């Protein structure tokens, strides 16, 4: 299978640090900001960001995991239904600035579902979207990231796979591969 490396471990680390500095710049001491990782792959990025902010700014920030399976628009339209993941949000987001984090932004449908799922926890003051990879020219909804690591040109026949050492891979890496 053809594979093309998009980001290697060092580049990912640099991007994650840049994200943290941008967040510190935009959100001061995070006293009104919460972080949500979009299941199933956003929480890994979220955990890294939260850890780095604590390291760089000495600040513990509130975070949670959001699953949008029950809010998706493709229920009964897929061959196989998606399996839901855990939602773990132990705070209300009413009046908060929310940073929504995912690994790859593709059609924008997951983010739309996430925005819908999120308001079950209150009306946020503002929502910002952070993704490692933004797939260009593929959006079905008018959704743009506020923070992105890299923009890539991809075809429908390709997918972006994100590998983490946490999931058993040798190195953190992001690839573009052809669908089987």
């Amino acid at each position, binding site marked *: 299978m053809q594979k093309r490396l998009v980001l290697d471990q060092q580049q990912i680390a640099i991007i994650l640090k840049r994200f943290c500095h941008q967040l510190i710049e935009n959100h001061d001491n995070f006293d009104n900001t919460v972080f949500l990782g979009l299941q199933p792959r956003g929480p890994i990025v979220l955990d890294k960001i939260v850890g780095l902010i604590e390291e760089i700014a000495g600040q513990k920030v509130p975070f949670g995991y959001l*699953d949008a*399976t*029950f*809010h998706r628009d493709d*229920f*009964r339209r897929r*061959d*196989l*239904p*998606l*399996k*839901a*993941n*855990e*939602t*773990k949000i132990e705070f*209300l987001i009413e009046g908060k600035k929310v940073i929504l984090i995912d690994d790859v932004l593709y059609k924008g449908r997951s983010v739309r579902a996430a925005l*819908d*799922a999120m*308001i*079950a*926890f*209150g009306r946020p003051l503002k929502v910002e979207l952070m993704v490692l990879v933004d797939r260009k020219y593929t959006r079905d909804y008018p959704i743009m990231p506020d923070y992105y690591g890299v923009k890539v040109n991809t075809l429908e026949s390709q997918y972006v796979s994100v590998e983490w050492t946490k999931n058993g891979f040798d190195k953190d890496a992001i690839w573009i591969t052809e669908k089987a």
Partner: protein
Amino acid sequence: MSQLSSRHLLGIKDITSDDIQLIFETADNFKEVLNRPIKKVPSLRDITIANIFFENSTRTKLSFELAEKRLSADVVNFSSSNSSVKKGETLIDTVNNILSMKVDMVVMRHSSPGAPHFLSRNIKANIVNAGDGTHEHPTQALLDAFSIREKLGDVAGKKVAIIGDILHSRVALSNIFCLQKLGAEVMVCGPVTLLPKHIDSLGVIVEHDVQCALAWCDVANILRIQLERQQIKYFPSLREYSLYYGVNKKMLDTLDKEIVIMHPGPINRGVELNSDVADSEHSIILHQVENGVAIRMAVLYLLAGVR
């Protein structure tokens, strides 16, 4: 696996242990949804569900209706007492008339065992059995096992005693199938007249002494005496039944361990279960009711997802 092996939920006998695990995992997620400030998700917004109840029900009907509304389904309710069934309409005609109004799923309770199976062979909609006579009540068994899993961590390896009127109980049969599929040991306990003749062929332990059953088990699921289904006298009096088979706090105090008390409701207080047990910390009866909504949401969601 992300979908059930069946298009219908007719009985626990027809589904696999993998199906049950999938229902539990999905119910875990819905339980979290039910604890949110906004307890509603839009998953079933293009689905219409008919709740067809040919028999009385409070808890099950409310629980299904709430589950359907939490999933954003459109709901129509039907009960036989104020319908054309009284005018002689057949079951299949009644249901076909409802389905011609573009209903996608049917939740049905009926006094005849096998009624939902009959429907599933004759109509296109997904069928959920909400109790068919003395046969099965699958969602009750699922929520019972889910409540045991929640309280004790797992169902496998646990000893569960089902005590009371086993003969007339659809809850007992579904519970036996469900608990055994999940790896629990099951005992049934009651007077000889209220146990079916060949119940031991299901691989359950049979006991007639309630104190022995309580000493054996980790969980006691106590069933109601179903006087409405009893055509003949199975025991001399309710007072005598209560003396021999009623569970009270004094009996639990004599045990050298803590056991979990369950009851599918409605409770006949002072008959099969005393208030000092029903309202005690041993009892998870109200948790069962709470879990019922999450389990029914999971069942409806998973069945609707099967194309």
